[in-house]
């Protein structure tokens, strides 16, 4: 793996991002409630949490599929929060791409694979001749493990794993700096998941792409990520390097997530009982807490009292 320079300016800097959805006059869903994190160039940042924790909303707010309620997003020196200037919007659209969860639903069934993949280049007029466009499309198809013949087919003629490859090709042809992969592998079969993850990793090594990997499958996140953020109910409750999160989880929610991963070891697995975490029962209020640094890279959202208690508990934790 390539070495990541953490002393540099982060590629993506998010500060106090909020995304509210107004449901009715009196009720507003706070899907993302003031989260801050950084992603450095060349790394993979994993965002995990249960459904409804706001992890997908975060991804969609970053790429501006939503208009964030509040917060600052700096993407490689460009401010992409608030009202976008034409120049910033163009920069964002060209340099940040997304891979969606469901490869069956995210490809236009009426377009050929060639047109799906070439669309980004065509919109931004990033080619000078038809030959160059052809070359680029066939080149990227080859990179993701498909062949030139596939270009003239329609999405429904492919299997799930192949469609996800098309989704990846579509994102990568723009030569993006940051790719947001929103549950990119959870709709695939186990044997195909490994293929796609390996492909994403190889492409990262080759092209130096930065990934934000949104998922609920912690074992896969561990495998692919350099750093992990754990989200719960719109807050990032713990963030750290992959080792820190897995070796020394402080927040009880992180621990409950880790203990819930079923492991393919029958004798051990049958004897194990998963930990439970109930925010209400424990009386934890995320809005009361602030960020405590455990190490330079590892931090937890907690009040002082909670932090002391959890750090003590964490010493006895073995997942």
């Amino acid at each position, binding site marked *: *793996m390539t070495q990541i320079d953490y002393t540099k300016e982060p590629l993506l800097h998010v500060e106090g991002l909020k995304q509210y959805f107004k449901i009715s006059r009196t009720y507003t869903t706070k899907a993302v409630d003031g989260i801050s994190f950084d992603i450095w160039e060349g790394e993979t940042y994993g965002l995990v949490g*249960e*459904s409804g924790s706001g992890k997908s909303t975060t991804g969609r707010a970053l790429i501006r599929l939503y208009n964030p309620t509040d917060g600052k997003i700096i993407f490689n020196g460009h401010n992409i929060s608030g009202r976008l200037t034409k120049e910033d919007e163009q920069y964002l659209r060209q340099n940040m791409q997304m891979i969606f969860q469901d490869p069956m639903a995210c490809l236009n069934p009426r377009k050929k694979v060639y047109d799906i993949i070439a669309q980004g280049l065509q919109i931004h007029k990033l080619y000078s001749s038809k030959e160059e466009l052809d070359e680029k499309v066939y080149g990227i198809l080859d990179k993701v493990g498909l062949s030139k013949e596939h270009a003239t087919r329609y999405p429904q003629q492919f*299997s*799930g*794993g*192949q469609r996800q490859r098309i989704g990846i090709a579509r994102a990568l042809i723009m030569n993006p700096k940051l790719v947001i992969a929103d549950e990119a592998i959870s709709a695939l*079969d*186990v*044997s*195909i*998941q*490994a*293929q796609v*993850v*390996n492909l994403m*990793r190889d492409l990262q090594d080759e092209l130096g792409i930065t990934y934000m990997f949104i998922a*609920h*499958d*912690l*074992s*896969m996140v*561990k*495998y692919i990520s350099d750093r992990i953020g754990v989200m719960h109910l719109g807050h990032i409750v713990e963030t750290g390097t992959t080792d820190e999160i*897995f070796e020394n989880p402080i927040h009880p929610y992180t621990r*409950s*997530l*880790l*203990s*819930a*991963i*079923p*492991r*393919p*070891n*029958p*004798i*051990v*697995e*049958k*004897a*194990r*009982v*998963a930990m*439970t*975490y109930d925010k209400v029962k424990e009386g934890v209020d995320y809005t009361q807490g602030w960020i405590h640094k455990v190490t330079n890279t590892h931090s937890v959202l907690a009040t002082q009292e909670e932090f002391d208690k959890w750090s003590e508990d964490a010493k006895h934790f073995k997942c």
Partner: protein
Amino acid sequence: MAYKRSKEDRVLSVRDLNISFETTNGKVNAIRGVRMDLFKGETIAIVGESGSGKSVTVKTIMGILASNGKIESGKIDYTFTNEKGEKETVDMTKLSQKEIRYRFNGKHIAMVFQDPMTSLDPTMTIGKQITEGMLLHENITREEAKTRALHLLEEVGIENPEKRFKQYPHQLSGGMRQRVVIAIALACNPDILICDEPTTALDVTIQAKILEVIKKLQQEHNISVIYITHDLGVVAKVADYVDVMYAGRIIEKGNINEVFYDPRHPYTWGLLASMPDTDTDSTRLFAIPGTPPNLLEEIVGDAFAPRNPYALAIDYKAEPPMFNVGGQHRVASWLCDPRAPKVELPEQLRDRLAKMKAEAEKLEAAGEGVQ
């Protein structure tokens, strides 16, 4: 855990089942000679990727095969205690869908589907959906049915059952809904519970709780459970016995410890190795190359051969029979033939298996120490 299966306790026996589907593109041979057994009180898991035929197998047992599906041959013998209290065995393949639905579904064989969002009726209250089956199959009053439904809701871990009884599915979270689906399935005290990917649509934390609920209820009611899943972690947690399916055939079967600690089929190796391990830092995930075969075409030899790095010449010519490799362990791979060359496990998997065994032994030793 070694347990004995005795013939008297057999509730379900599937023999040489062949099922095909008539599609616009031609005939799909979805199930090709499946043989499996289910005994009283045990849990079996059917593992395989999508299209391997695991859902089709259980749908046939339930009598809810799609209308273009056809049972070509084979039989499914189901043994149960009938209304007169006698033991009776019927061949489910000989019955009409209507008959199965009227006599067995819900009452004897119940099913939990993958997606609790779609398997509940949005226009009916939870209570009505749970009591519906009871009122249909059993001669009881509404009040009795309600008392039993409330008890069931409590059993599956729903707090405040009185309130939930009157609510609609959309007022419940995904995990709660799946609990309701389980309560509905258990409403008429079935002998067999089929769980078709019961936790795939749920989060890991909720998944663990749902699996624990099913396990607890299984022990209390002494029911046999068939799990269908592609998550080997789930299988390890719940199953006593495993059937690994690939392209419509069972390619490896045995009790859970045999299959997990001593896998013999290259496909099972691939499945186990392609699961990311939370304990090791492997740099590259093992992936099974290629994609599953198209069942529209006739398969010659071993269906897994084109994806199998260990394939022998014979794999492309003849389909391997089931080899007995000791105990309850059966494997359909030519590698288990005594004439086959010895093949080493992939290094990554060998290390992992060694580690798994060590962990398990440590745990067992600790357990004995306590006793």
